[in-house]
């Protein structure tokens, strides 16, 4: 009985209202769909990247239990028999991984040198049908390409792959293309480990050992005992954690993106909430009538909540579909790191994460349900008699909520910024932003009232009327503003953060590029400048001075991303091109000085004067921190030591990079050519001028943030939806009012102008509030979230011009949106609406 009554009521009220207001309905649904779609897209893109990265790691190490790894420069192969002979070890698979620079074309290719007999024991499916070519692979200079690599490089079986080793080119015969199976989806190449060691001048070196333990060996204890026995700089981790370690570098970036996605979901939710609220308000008289007719307030709440859930479910399913679709597009177009370069070389396919999607769906539906529930609760509580009177919704819109919760939230936001990172993630920073946003939302009606009271009373009729309407209903204005506030403040904060970062980066680049020319053998591990080339470089006529840098990556602690070691020619008293953020203090006792990046300072809690043990070249060296510098390139931390110390420890005289100061009067272009001739190389060495490097860095920066721009645009659109929803929800309710005004002598145009003005004022209020809240949020982003995620500091820079332009654009769009959304309400029937009682 109850059920059927309920259903009948639902049909009458909800369905009726929907039919009357198709546009509002569509807007509600598309708002939630857009929010959900954004969340879904970003989440799926991230999820796919991680899944892909994980499977890329797994596909090579198969069912290994333990992974032993060390510096990027590798470790001594003598460890291999040592570990293989341990009783707990069933299979030990040695791997030499090289980021090989491709010769005569752009880019690098990951070459995995392995012992197929050992690797296949861990990963039987590694070679697939190419297993028939196994014996061929044992010959020197043969290589197998994964299907993805063959496609990317447009090479086929029998072709020759040229790679750069040092400054020389070596040719490798492609003897097979690995089948495009599940295991090896990434672009990479397989070589026999012996051939790889020989080809890439890495005799005696390994970069990894994958171990499978005997079934009876306890994994944790064995891991511990292996780890303790390892030489300096090597770590043993459980294979499951190996990919986590690789992912650690991009974790903060991914979390940041996910947070952005959440914010867009939140924006959509706020929008749905305000739409539902307005719609419930509009139907207040209906509800009061129902209450008068004997419908319980509980039933009313159920009715509206149910409506919210239904709308939410429709919008959410549309959003999920749209999100999955656009995730595919995004991955196909921009790659799984959305252009940020964290997963360079990883080819992703969009994978579906049911749990994540379910959570997103729940968020979407919950927001919509809440949007029905809260106003229903309020309507249910109101005395039906009062609600029946015409104009009663005015009462609800007029009353100002208490300021206290909003202020408390703002305060809480401030306190949250003081808390440290959780597990390397700025969780409290995000919480602070959420608190500030929600707090600001709650203060919106008060803000609107205060701001409007402050505005002059215009004499111009449209303006007077529009402002009076807003003044009269701060609740309505607050609700309409919610979405635009959320989205615009997000955009503002991102813009300020990006601008701060970009300008700080630009300043930084100017500091770290002091030389006239930069020569680099490439970013790969296979290319370097050997001592012969160094000698040739020094003797070039236009060269005054050359300083070299050698890069390596060290594993200081398991579970942490590798730390970059830079060995650079420098004068310890005045190290040039080091953007120090601390005072420089050389160790008095003649110990080796080291300059650490801010990330090292934060991650390893090191300060100037502290001692640090570095595993370099298989032995441990103690260095003293002489200064802390800003490094915008390497999040995992960087430690810089004098190159002569490095050479003394390792005997490694190779260099990755040369800084070249020219003799006075030498032209950089001519000097580049002279250097190439002197070194007798062509494209094997990159010679660049500081200006070009700066440009390239900034381009890379812009690429990284490209995706955030897309998210910002989407958020802004949702915000504008908010204004449109607000105005059009009001439009129907105000049809009578427009009719009266028309009677009183306002032309249709003036009416439109009034509404446009209302929209514009709302937009302006939103823009202003957004600027304020966004600025606060940007402070949190710059000083809390960035610091805690990436450990680097930056100066605050405000992009005045873009912010002003955007604010004006917002006001204009808001006015336009309002004018457009009111258009349908301003038909002929507004004359008749005057006759209607409701």
């Amino acid at each position, binding site marked *: 009985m109850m059920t059927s009554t309920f259903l009948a009521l639902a049909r009458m009220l909800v369905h009726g209202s929907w039919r009357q207001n198709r546009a509002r309905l569509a807007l509600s649904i598309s708002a939630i769909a857009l929010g959900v779609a954004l969340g879904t897209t970003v989440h799926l893109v991230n999820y796919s990247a991680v899944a892909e990265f994980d499977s890329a790691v797994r596909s090579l190490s198969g069912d290994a239990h333990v992974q032993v790894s060390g510096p990027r420069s590798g470790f001594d192969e003598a460890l291999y028999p040592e570990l293989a002979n341990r009783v707990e070890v069933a299979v030990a698979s040695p791997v030499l991984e090289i980021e090989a620079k491709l010769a005569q074309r752009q880019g690098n290719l990951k070459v995995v040198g392995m012992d197929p007999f050992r690797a296949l024991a861990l990963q039987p499916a590694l070679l697939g049908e190419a297993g028939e070519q196994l014996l061929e692979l044992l010959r020197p200079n043969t290589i197998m390409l994964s299907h993805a690599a063959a496609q990317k490089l447009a090479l086929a079986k029998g072709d020759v792959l040229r790679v750069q080793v040092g400054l020389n080119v070596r040719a490798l015969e492609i003897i097979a293309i690995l089948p495009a199976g599940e295991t090896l989806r990434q672009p990479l190449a397989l070589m026999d480990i012996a051939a790889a060691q020989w080809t890439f001048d890495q005799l005696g070196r390994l970069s990894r050992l994958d171990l499978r333990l005997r079934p009876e060996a306890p994994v944790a204890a064995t891991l511990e005992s292996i780890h303790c026995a390892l030489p300096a700089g090597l770590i043993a981790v459980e294979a499951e954690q190996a990919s986590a370690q690789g992912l650690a570098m991009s974790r903060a970036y991914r979390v940041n993106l996910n947070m952005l996605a959440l914010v867009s979901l939140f924006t959509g939710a706020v929008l749905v909430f305000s739409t539902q609220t307005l719609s419930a308000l509009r139907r207040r008289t209906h509800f009061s009538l129902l209450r008068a007719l004997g419908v319980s307030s509980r039933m009313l709440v159920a009715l509206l909540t149910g409506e919210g859930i239904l709308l939410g479910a429709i919008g959410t399913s549309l959003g999920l579909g749209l999100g999955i679709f656009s995730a595919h597009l995004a991955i196909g177009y921009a790659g799984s790191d959305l252009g940020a370069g964290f997963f360079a070389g990883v080819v992703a396919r969009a994978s579906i994460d049911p749990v994540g999607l379910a959570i997103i769906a729940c968020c979407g539906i919950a927001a919509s349900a809440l949007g029905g529930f809260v106003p229903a609760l309020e309507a249910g509580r109101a005395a039906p008699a009062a609600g029946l009177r015409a*104009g009663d919704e*005015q009462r609800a819109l007029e009353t100002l909520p208490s300021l206290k919760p909003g202020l408390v939230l703002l305060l809480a936001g401030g306190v949250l910024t003081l808390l440290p990172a959780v597990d390397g993630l700025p969780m409290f920073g995000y919480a602070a932003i959420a608190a500030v946003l929600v707090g600001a939302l709650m203060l919106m009606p008060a803000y609107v009232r205060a701001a409007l009271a402050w505005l002059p009373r215009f*004499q111009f009729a449209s303006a007077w009327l529009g402002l009076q309407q807003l003044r009269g209903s701060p609740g309505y204005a607050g609700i309409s503003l919610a979405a635009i506030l959320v989205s615009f403040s997000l955009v503002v904060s991102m813009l300020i953060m990006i601008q701060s970062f970009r300008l700080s980066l630009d300043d930084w680049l100017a500091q770290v590029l002091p030389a006239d020319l930069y020569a680099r053998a490439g970013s790969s591990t296979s290319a370097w400048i050997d001592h012969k080339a160094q000698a040739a470089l020094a003797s070039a006529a236009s060269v005054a001075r050359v300083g070299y840098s050698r890069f390596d990556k060290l594993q200081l602690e398991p579970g942490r991303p590798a730390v970059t070691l830079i060995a650079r020619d420098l004068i310890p008293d005045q190290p040039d091109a080091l953007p120090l953020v601390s005072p420089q203090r050389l160790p008095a006792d003649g110990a080796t000085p080291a300059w650490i990046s801010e990330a090292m300072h934060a991650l390893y809690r090191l300060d100037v004067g502290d001692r640090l043990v570095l595993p370099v070249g298989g032995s441990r060296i103690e260095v003293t921190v002489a200064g802390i510098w800003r490094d915008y390139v390497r999040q995992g931390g960087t430690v810089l030591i004098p190159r002569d110390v490095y050479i003394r420890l390792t005997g490694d005289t190779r260099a990755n990079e040369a800084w070249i100061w020219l003799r006075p009067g030498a032209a950089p272009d001519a000097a580049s050519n002279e250097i190439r001739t002197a070194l007798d190389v062509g494209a094997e060495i990159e010679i660049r001028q500081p200006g070009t490097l700066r440009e390239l860095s900034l381009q890379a920066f812009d690429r990284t943030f490209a995706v955030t721009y897309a998210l910002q645009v989407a958020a802004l659109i949702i915000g504008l939806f908010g204004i449109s929803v607000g105005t059009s929800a009001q439009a129907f309710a105000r049809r009578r009012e427009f009719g*009266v005004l028309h*009677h*009183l*002598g306002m032309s*249709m145009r003036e009416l439109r102008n009034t509404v446009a003005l209302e929209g514009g004022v709302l937009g302006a209020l939103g823009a202003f509030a957004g600027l304020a809240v966004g600025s606060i949020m940007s402070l949190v982003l710059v000083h809390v979230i960035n610091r805690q995620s990436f450990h680097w500091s930056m100066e605050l820079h405000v992009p005045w011009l873009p912010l002003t332009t955007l604010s004006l654009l917002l006001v204009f769009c808001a006015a336009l949106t309002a004018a457009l959304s009111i258009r349908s309400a301003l038909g002929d029937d507004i004359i008749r609406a005057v006759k209607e009682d409701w």
Partner: protein
Amino acid sequence: MLIVRKLSKSLGSGQSTRALFADVDLDIAAGEFVALIGESGSGKSTLLNLIAGLDTPDSGTIEIAGTQLTQLDDGQRSAFRRTHLGFIFQAFHLLPYLSVADNVALPLVLIGCARSEREQRVAQALRDVDLHGMPDAKPHQLSGGEMQRAAIARALIHRPRLILADEPTGNLDADNANLALDLLRQCVAREDTACLLVTHSTAAARRADRVCALGSGQLRAAQRP
């Protein structure tokens, strides 16, 4: 003041056209209070809308204070309405978000009246309708009679030449209805305004100077009830 000649209006279009009235003539002089009666659906409201320039006739002319309404476009008609016409509705139609004073001031705002003069005139108008005690009240805080008095004040504040009142007493009890009509009559007399009152109420019609009845597509002079 108001001269309506040969005014015809049909509803619908094409085959299903139904003539509402044809060749209606109506004259109202300044200071004259005319009641228009007729059965529901006889076209009273439509006639009122035509006179207000809110609707366009099929044929015929409407002249108010020397202006041919039918020759104006929407903007001009709106401008004309705001200066020459006043409206009173059955459901009062005060704007919910405006205070009583602002509701009354609305027509003055529309004609761009200076604020000081406006405030002065609003105060006077509120006194006239006996609402001077509650200028800041919102409509939903008023009783029906108070709302209609505010609406009357609004209709008169800009000294229109013609007041169009559509069932102004329809939502009021007898006492309040009488009070409203008294007010209306007083003001019309004071300002020398013409007034066309559409009503079902014989009590209301009885207060008019003259009564016209709309029926069977014709407008005829009728006996005062």
